[in-house]
């Protein structure tokens, strides 16, 4: 299995954030851990890059944040998906799915079937 991390497509991180938050509110570190674990380190993301992205999606109004005390007694900035964010995620997901389906169809097509037909 190829272990070279894939470079991240622009805007992908936004989708990952939205997707993560769709399971419930979370603070930055939790989001970062989710992404790390679910992608199994296949995506090379500098962990710090998450934070500007979080603020951007917040600026768009897709998420909102508040400082809260966690179960462990720490103060953490907790992010929560907004209604607009949920809508945005749906749009992104369906866009991705169509894109991937199309690409996959092309990439897996067999030349013999295409030529001579």
């Amino acid at each position, binding site marked *: 299995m190829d272990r070279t991390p894939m470079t991240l497509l622009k805007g992908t991180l936004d989708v990952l954030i939205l997707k993560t938050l769709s399971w419930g509110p979370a603070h*930055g*570190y939790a989001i*970062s851990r989710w992404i790390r674990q679910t992608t199994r380190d296949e995506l090379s993301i500098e*962990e710090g*890059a998450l*934070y*500007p992205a979080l*603020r951007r999606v917040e600026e768009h109004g897709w998420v909102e944040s508040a400082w809260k005390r966690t179960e462990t007694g720490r*103060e953490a900035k907790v992010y929560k998906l907004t209604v607009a964010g949920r809508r945005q995620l749906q749009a992104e997901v369906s866009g991705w799915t169509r894109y991937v389906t199309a690409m996959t169809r092309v990439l897996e097509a067999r030349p013999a079937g295409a030529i001579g037909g």
Partner: protein
Amino acid sequence: MSLFRRRPDEALPLSRQKPVAEDVRREVEAHLELRAEELIAQGWEPEAARAESRRAFGEVGAIESECREITTRARRAQRRAELLDAFWQDLVYAGRVLRGAPGFAAAAILTLALGIGANTAIFSVVNGVLLRPLPYERPERLVDLVELHERGYASVPWTSFLDLQAQSRSFEALAEYGGGRGTIQGADEPVRAAVAPVSRDFFRVMRTRAWIGRLPGPGDHAEGAAPVAVVSYRFWRSHLGGDRDLSGKRLRGEFGFDVIGVLPPGFDFPGGTDIWHPLELNRQPTSRTAHNWPAIGRLKPGVSPRQAEEELRSIFRRIGESAGPDFDAVGARVTPLQELLTGSVRRPLFLLLGASALLLLAACTNLASTLLARGTARASELAIRTALGAGRLRIVRQVFTESLVIAVLGCAAGLLVASLLLRALLALAPVGLMRLGDARLDPWVLGFTVAVGLTTAVLFGLFPALRISDVDSGAAMREGARAGGGPRRQRLWSLLVSVEVALALVLLAGSGLMLRSFATVLGIDPGFRADSVLTVELDLPEREYPDVVRAVAFHDRALEALRRIPGVEAAGVSNVLPLGGDNPSGGIQVEGKALLPVGHPITGFAVYRLASTGYFEAMGMRIVRGRGLSEGDVAGAAPAIVVNEALAADGWPGQDPIGKRLRIGGMDGPGAEPWATVVGVVRNVPGSAVTSPARPTYYYSYRQLPYRARWMTAVIRTRVPPLSIAPQVRAALREIDPAVPAEFRTMEERLATSIADRRFTMAVLGAFAGAALLLAAVGIYGVVSYAVAQRTREIGIRIALGARPRTVARMVQGRAMLMVGVGIVLGIAGALALTRVMRSQLYEVSPTDPGTFAAAIVVLGAAGWLASWIPARRGTRVDPMVAIRTE
């Protein structure tokens, strides 16, 4: 609904958010710690875990700064949106409030429109006449030049001008020019046109190019050159048919001119000129006292008028060392052309601008008091809003937004008022008011209006807004509808009304002073009788009347014909009529008096007039001693002369001038004229303005001293309305010579023109004063009505207890008059301070004239009494039972 809302509804208000830097730092810190903890839990050494955590995070500093940037930007946008949102809410709310009180809104907007309109109209005149630059290239460098003498100043004589032109380094170009009206033939019909002879560099000074054809070249500016002329765009359109082909276009005036060019539209210097031709066509006198032509120059860049004056003074000093004894200039004065052209109207216009500012202030005061009254009525509404959590700032902003809406609407209505007023001003303004045609509502004026409007919003809006918001919500709500009219606020309100009264008094006093001056001016006995006099300007074409003998013959025949017209009582001619100016004038020698040390054998100066028999009768000028000019005073007979009272007193103080002799010091050499015997003394008549003292003047028979006899004005005294005989006069003159055009004006018109400036200032100031008086009366009415309404119950009780309504009314009115009294005292103080600036506009009236002040006080007092009487009376006519039950 919000147009501007962009933030999510649940976002924290900005005031409860952490500072951006701290927010970012703590979030990053938390991440690093949690990551390190996780690693330690996986068995890392703490040190290594922290290092790994940092490594995995990336560049902490760069990321933090990126985060800060994004959030700062986002918060800024949020703040903007919040402000706009609040403003929009305020605006919507203000609109609803104003719609709910249409009477108040209309009154407020009208009041403001009046104030702003007056200011805008006057400012557009000031802007057009005084502020807007002349329509020439780099007009600030155009200057007027005069020679300074020990006493006074005069035009630069041609010879001295040539010296300046050759030696001065301060100017790009210098020129002299003249101007006069002349008969022009060769256009579609003989016309009288304004003709200006100009020296070689005139158009270089003005930096003008020909619009069609060419300008005169250096070769055209020479004695004996083929005469050429350029014409104004206006003249070209109206009299040359607008034909672009100028070849063969010839005009005959003093010379026969080939028209070689047309100047661009808008070129208008000297003002009103139709035709320009080289001045050098005529030989110019070499005398250094021949102060014939005004001079104009264009300063080099960076040279100030003062520096130019310095240089000219040193040049004059050099000339003085070599020139003869007739040279007496000691320096020069260099004045920006714009200042010169507008000098006489500057003060009256600024005076009117000041007056309109006072009117605006009165309008603002009126509005402030109205808003305050409304604020009182709205106290309970505002108290409820405060109780519901609206901050004081929020309420101030709300109330202020209402003022802003009124101000904006007032501005719009004010522009409408301004355009109407401007039209009235233009119709009323004296013809001579320079560049008045340039007065219009341009972007500068619009900018001015907007500035004025915003200022007024602050003036009349912010103050009451602060006052209104200062409510004790509990007390206000308890008192309900009657709430808030506390004594403090009532006092403030009364004070505002007093200020209105004071402003009205200042304006009334000012316009009263103008009125009084005007009445005095109208009452001046000018020394002639303007009623029933028709004047006809005659200008004999040079070509047909090359010598004065023919001119004299024309006038002889014309007078004879005019006197035969039915309805004519007397007829005469003169070179210059009363109010026609103090030119020409020159040196005279009174026999037996000591000569002045000027090189010429003269003993003084006097204004030079030609006249015919019948002139004094026609003009209504009384002969106070001796006789007037007679049919016997003809060429060849002993020269006879009539002097005015001023010359009699100046030449022969304490003596009878009849039989004494004087001679005029001709320009063409000393003592060229024969001695003339004084045969009569005639009343003084004003030379330029009715208010200016008469200069010493002599009247020579045009038959004995026929210089300038080609330019004469006939004066006809009639028994019928003067203009009604104009057709017969025209016919009679045509019969003698159809080539001579005649221009008719009544003497009354000339008199009216001479005082038109004064009338204009007076009328405008009077209108402002009237408006201010009205505003003050409305203010008084409002405050008294309110006071009466507040005290309905008390009044009802008093009446029920037996007080007579009239007594109660008097009591209410007494307080109002106290308010008026305070205003009058304030107003007198203000007027005493302010009317001083009017001194130059007044005539024989002191700026603190007690009679005028007394009249203004009486008028205001009466208006105040009436304005308080009406509501006081109505208020006390209540049925006591109803009044008591209202609460």
